[in-house]
């Protein structure tokens, strides 16, 4: 039996047809997720690039709120009013509610807990004022407008801020009623933002809610949870949630005002992808300004106007490689490069709370540098002290004590 020629052709062409139907894995994806939880939803359609420069209507059907992702258990509980609808939590939000009024008016209510003073009341209130398009206020002005509410968690500073930002939707914006309980170890930010009249009507209920807050188990939801029970953190917090001015993580929107780092410091985690770390700095170290690349800064004054600069920074991955980094640091203080074989002899491991930090002590003609680094959870942490030789030598014991106090997983 001879095989028919058409069937032979079909057999040869079929693979080509199948391959041409191959889905392009490199297509641009457009999808929607629940507010603040961009980790948690399924993607919609692929959007082709539009030819030219015209703007086309958004493509892709609205995606449903996705499956729940990571969440930390609530650390405090309170009793919300029955008309508040519970909303999905995130790593930032320990409580989240939505209240609805007439004519589509809504107000969003949240509780965010951050480590340390997290910038303090004035800086955060001024940031909220800027979100409402209002000018900043001074500490004296704040003292006049603030109201104090007693709560089991501490004394809450409550403010009522009004203003509609340019282009804002009056049905959903125009007023922020907020309460701040600021402490050395952590701070609580209660915030209601939404339609001005609705926020006014909910103001007393909001303040009462703050008064019911206490340490404990999960807060009972006030109403049906819309969407997922809990969803993962998203990138949204930078613009909408309190950001610590003390140790902002790289890339976070800088907070106006003087930036200070607590002596017992914590780099706050705005979401689960951001680093958490704790340490105890020696008493003589003076906290300094942070930057996008610095998780924390300290300085130490020595004799004859000498000063030491201490920094904590974090980079993704291996941070550029040990040998490359060490040689770069050596170059900064006027030392020549070392080979890979020589590096091993220079490195001294120091045990910290939950791991090991590798250190080098390098004295060059320009300065002396003490550096510690550790790779944790796919990130590289760098602790660096640079100072004149004598001052660096005097601070070495304190620096090593500082390294030993580091907790990467507090």
């Amino acid at each position, binding site marked *: 039996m001879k095989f028919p020629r058409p069937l032979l052709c079909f057999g040869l062409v079929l693979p080509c047809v199948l391959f041409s139907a191959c889905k392009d894995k490199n297509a641009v994806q457009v999808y929607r997720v629940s507010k603040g939880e961009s980790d948690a939803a399924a993607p919609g359609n692929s959007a082709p690039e539009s030819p030219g420069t015209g703007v086309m209507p958004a493509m892709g059907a609205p995606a449903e709120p996705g499956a729940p992702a990571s969440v930390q258990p609530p650390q405090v509980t309170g009793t919300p009013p029955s008309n508040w609808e519970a909303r999905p939590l995130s790593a930032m939000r320990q409580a989240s509610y939505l209240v609805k009024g007439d004519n589509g008016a809504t107000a969003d209510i949240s509780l965010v807990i951050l480590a340390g003073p997290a910038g303090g009341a004035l800086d955060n209130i001024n940031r909220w004022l800027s979100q409402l398009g209002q000018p900043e206020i001074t500490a004296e002005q704040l003292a006049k407008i603030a109201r104090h509410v007693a709560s089991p968690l501490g004394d809450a500073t409550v403010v009522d801020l009004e203003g509609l930002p340019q282009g804002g939707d009056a049905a959903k914006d125009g007023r922020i009623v907020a309460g701040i309980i600021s402490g050395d170890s952590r701070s609580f930010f209660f915030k209601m933002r939404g339609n001005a009249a609705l926020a006014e009507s909910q103001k007393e209920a909001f303040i009462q809610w703050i008064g019911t807050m206490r340490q404990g188990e999960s807060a009972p939801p006030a109403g049906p949870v819309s969407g997922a029970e809990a969803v993962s953190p998203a990138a*949204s917090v930078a613009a909408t949630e309190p950001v610590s001015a003390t140790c902002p993580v790289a890339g976070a929107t800088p907070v106006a005002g003087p930036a200070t780092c607590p002596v017992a410091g914590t780099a706050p985690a705005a979401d689960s992808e951001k680093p958490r770390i704790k340490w105890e700095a020696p008493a003589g170290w003076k906290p300094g300004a942070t930057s996008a690349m610095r998780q924390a800064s300290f300085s130490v004054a020595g004799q004859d106007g000498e000063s030491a600069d201490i920094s904590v920074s974090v980079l993704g991955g291996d941070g550029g490689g040990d040998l490359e980094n060490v040689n770069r640091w050596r170059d900064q203080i006027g030392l020549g490069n070392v080979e890979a074989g020589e590096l091993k002899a220079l490195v001294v491991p120091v045990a910290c709370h939950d791991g090991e930090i590798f250190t080098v002590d390098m004295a060059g003609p320009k300065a002396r540098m003490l550096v510690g680094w550790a790779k944790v959870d796919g990130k590289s942490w760098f602790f660096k002290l640079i100072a004149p030789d004598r001052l660096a030598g005097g601070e070495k014991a304190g620096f090593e004590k500082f390294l030993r106090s580091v907790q990467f997983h507090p």
Partner: protein
Amino acid sequence: MAHRFFDFISSLKLTIVCLSAAMILVFVGTLAQVNFGIHEVQERYFQSLVVWWPAGSQGLRIPVFPGGHLIGGVLLVNLVAAHLRRFRWSWSKLGIHLTHAGLIILLAGGLFTDLFSVESFMRLAPGETKNYSEDSRAVELVVVDGSDKEFEQVTAIPEERLKRGGTIALASLPFRIIVRHFYQNSQLQPLDQAGPNAVPAASQGVGARVAVSELPRATAQNEGDLVSAVIEIAPVPGPDVPPSPGTWLVSGQLDTPQTFSFAGKPWRLAMRQARYYKPFSLTLKKFTHERYPGTQIPKNFASSATLNDPERNESRDVLIYMNHPLRYRGETFFQSGFEENEAATILQVVYNPSFIAPYLACVIVGVGLLFQLTWHFVGFLRRRKTHPAK
């Protein structure tokens, strides 16, 4: 003409040429791993139609040798054509037909795996739930529209698109993204540490305080590139054009998204590992890591998880451990590894629509060979019976 083409495509000479070319390609590709690393070599030599020279150049390139896909594809077509052309049905040839069919399935399966399979990983800490896996090598630029009160619209632009450069105009964005620089592998340094001649990578955000330098591609198996790009958010030309928010540095090294405002709306930018979303989620209940007593040698590590599929109304507990993966909705979740101190489990997620092909091919080839040997052996016995040895 058609006859000559079929003669050529089904000829044994073509088979020999293809097999020789494949041997040379494997040999050269193996040596090239020293300089390029295994992943780069796979892309350049084996997952391509042709091998280009000079490698990695953006300018003029010359095809110097057939790539793995071309050789494998021609070999597959050659085998199919030869088999169909010479096909004559008889019981005595059944074993050979089966063996050839098995080889065809093996070759086609290999090609399909190369083209369609996706490997990614899912990192889960205890109690954590995820409905996506991440690509360990590819990144994506995400642009998030956070103006809606309830939803965020995410536009994910793949690394390959950024690599092409130029202007990206998308229906989901009211502005264009112009890729000013793309760095396949890079190093970010604070400006104050990057030397006197360092310049800011971008005009806005972290990029204004950071210098970027290009690095050679990472070649070691346990290393990866740090992909970065400098992009410009450019208004669409027309009346009432809002001011440009400037240029931004996006990099896998920056953990936190950067924010900007365009036409009164808040937007966020971030470069992250490419994500593959799924219609179901996994929640890690517990991760166990057993060691042989008195040693650090792993005896067993397992992930106890809950699978939740709202579409299928399915919620059940699953146990994933070594050699016992979870197969669900066409994907296979292997217990791949874990982080230090058992802080998280790492599952390898493999989507391979033709994973059955090698198993099927081996069975068919085995049956074919067994049949052919048995057929000849029976024939031999019969001949001996008919013509006994003297």
